């Protein structure tokens, strides 16, 4: 059963019950009051008559039927309602009687003593009240019995009841309409929320219910919207991931197929024969260089895959020798490129995977030196931080536009394709660096402006545990640096 129906039925039941019980109670109470009043009047009139009978037998000389009739007439003259029948007995002897004898058939035994009893009766002559009372006078027990007719009161009650039934029917019909409208109004927001939820579950994630806050529906709406927000965010993340994966696959296919096309094509030309010397040389050169390109690509790709697979084994590594080592490998290349390399180390040691981090620093320095036209310098810096270590690689080369910065860690993205290729780049270096930084719980960030060089900052977060050991590392540097002083002073600079 739907909530709407439940609500309708509940409201209807409430209306039916309250109006039914209330109306019935009201009618009955008013009837009861009327009946009570009539009974009281009848009793008073009866008592007066009894007193008259007592007086008559006590003082009046004129005994007999005639006097009784006089008195009985007085009963009627009082004007209280209708007396249907009246009888006066002396023992079994009937002194006076009027009206149908059947009306008094239910007459009970006269009570003992000078009291009066009331019997409500309901027979074919209608509703009535039989009053019986004894009057003891001069050793005689005179019994007066009379029936008072209450039919009118009952008739009014019956008519009122029927009238109320009619009114009740009208109330119920109005009640049905009211409860339908009311429950519809109450469940309107619920229906709206339901349809919203259905549309969201149907895939339209941009839909929000946005009900005003305040009541339960508002809170439900807010919760629903929050759920949709989260869902949309998750879906977007997934879609982004798929998109970047697709982009990677597409770019990879391009990177793979382009050199392959050249190799196959030039090889084909050589194979067909009939080529002059210069064409042969050119074809062979291209086959060689494009094969080398494929080779580099496959190695870099292998690196990338390997990082993605294995959990790195972190080792406590001293920063100074680590940086020296990383730079030593590149020194000859940089010398050839006419680039100065300066290393600054804050000393200390940090938890990291030294091979991966060396590859990262190597890549960054390589990139930095490639960004330099002619003479220039690259500064490499490393120091421990609260949560790990921070490395920066700064060059005074060409720099990049802000728009390019967001793309450079994408696989196969190159700021300058032709230059990059001639320098042996395959476009995976920074994607690799980013991955390595992430493996160390850290991040890589870039700061650059065209013509002003680029600063790459790598922050690794391998835990504060390394920070504890850092201080010992610093003292070690201080010791080696002599009594001269602080860690900053002890920071070594090596020119390669």
């Amino acid at each position, binding site marked *: 059963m739907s909530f709407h129906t439940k609500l309708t039925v509940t409201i209807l039941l409430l209306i039916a019950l309250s109006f039914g019980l209330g109306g019935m109670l009201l009618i009955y109470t008013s009837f009861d009051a009327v009946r009570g009043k009539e009974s009281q009047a009848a009793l008073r009139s009866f008592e007066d008559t009894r007193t008259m009978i007592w007086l008559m037998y006590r003082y009046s000389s004129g005994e007999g039927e005639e006097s009784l009739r006089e008195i009985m007439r007085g009963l009627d003259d009082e004007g209280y309602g209708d007396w249907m029948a009246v009888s006066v007995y002396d023992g079994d002897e009937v002194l006076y009687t009027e009206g149908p004898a059947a009306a008094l058939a239910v007459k009970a035994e006269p009570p003992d003593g000078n009291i009066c009893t009331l019997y409500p009766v309901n027979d074919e002559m209608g509703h009535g009240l039989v009053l019986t009372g004894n009057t003891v006078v001069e050793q005689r027990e005179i019994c007066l019995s009379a029936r008072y007719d209450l039919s009118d009161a009952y008739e009014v009650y019956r008519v009122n009841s029927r009238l109320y039934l009619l009114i009740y029917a009208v109330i119920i019909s109005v009640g049905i309409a009211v409860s339908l409208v009311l429950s519809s109004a109450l469940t309107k927001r619920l229906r709206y929320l339901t349809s919203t939820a259905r549309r969201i579950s149907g895939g339209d994630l941009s839909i929000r219910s946005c009900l005003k806050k305040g009541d339960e529906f508002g809170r439900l709406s807010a919760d629903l919207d929050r759920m949709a927000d989260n869902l949309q965010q998750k879906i977007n993340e997934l879609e982004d991931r798929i998109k970047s994966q697709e982009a990677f696959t597409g770019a990879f296919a*391009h990177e793979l197929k382009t050199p392959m096309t*050249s190799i196959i*094509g030039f090889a084909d030309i050589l194979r067909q024969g009939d080529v002059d010397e210069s064409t042969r040389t050119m074809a062979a050169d291209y086959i060689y*260089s*494009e094969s080398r390109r494929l080779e580099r690509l496959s190695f870099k790709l292998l690196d990338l895959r390997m990082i993605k697979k294995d959990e790195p084994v972190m080792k406590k590594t001293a920063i100074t020798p680590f940086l020296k080592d990383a730079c030593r490998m590149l020194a000859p290349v940089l010398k050839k490129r006419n680039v100065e390399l300066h290393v600054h180390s804050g000393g200390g040691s940090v938890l990291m995977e030294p091979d991966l981090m060396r590859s990262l620093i190597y890549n960054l320095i390589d990139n930095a030196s490639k960004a330099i036209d002619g003479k220039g310098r690259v500064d490499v810096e490393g120091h421990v931080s609260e949560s790990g270590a921070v490395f920066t690689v700064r060059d005074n080369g060409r720099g990049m536009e802000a728009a390019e910065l967001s793309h450079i860690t994408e696989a196969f993205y190159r700021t300058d*394709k*032709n230059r990059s290729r001639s320098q042996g780049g395959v476009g995976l270096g920074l994607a690799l660096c980013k991955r390595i930084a992430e493996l160390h719980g850290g991040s890589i960030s870039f700061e650059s402006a065209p013509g002003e060089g680029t600063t790459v900052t790598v922050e690794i977060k391998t835990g504060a545990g390394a920070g504890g050991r850092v201080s010992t590392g610093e003292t070690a540097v201080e010791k080696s640096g002599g009594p001269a002083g602080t860690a900053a002073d002890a920071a070594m600079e090596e020119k390669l």
Partner: protein
Amino acid sequence: MIRILAVDDEKPILELLRLSLGRSGYQCDTAQDGAEALRMIEQNEYDLLLLDVMLPGIDGFTLMEYIGSSGVPVIFITAKDAIADRVRGLHLGAEDYIVKPFNILELQARVEGVLRRHGKLDSVIRINGLEINTLSMQVLRGGEELQLTRKEYELLLLFARNPGIVLSKDVIYERIWGGEYPDATRTVELHIQRMKKKAGWEDSLKSVYGMGYRLSRES
């Protein structure tokens, strides 16, 4: 002379296109990006464009939309062989597409096909004493028509269009019969023998040991 503009951001590919199309007798200019391509299209008149989809700056599709109205036929060269990309290229009005890595012969054939459809090629090829009319599919030697089967005609045409180039048996099989070259078959040899005799090419069409066959142009 037929002029073709090849647009690709890869220098090796451009050199390859220039070389192989040059050997087919076309003049091939090259451009390394969209902007350069546009400049060259405005300055010169080309009979055909070879367009790489992934170009720096203006990409191939955008370039295609720009030059679509000029009526120059376009063949796409793409490393993506996703159906959606191919369909998009064809929808934009490209005549054909070639997926990297491509075979030189395939490239030459597709270029020729597009040029032929646009009526930019002579329908008559004269080589080694034969006159081949590619429209009426007739081969004349000294005004006399040769009686060739369909396969023989196609074989003859393949060599006539690629003089001086070694055609391996599997390439020939692929082009004439279609599909993979079955190892244990002498179909190609037999057909070449018969065609050679009919065409009178016994001296110019030679087998190159271990490689295939080559038709040398007679002076």
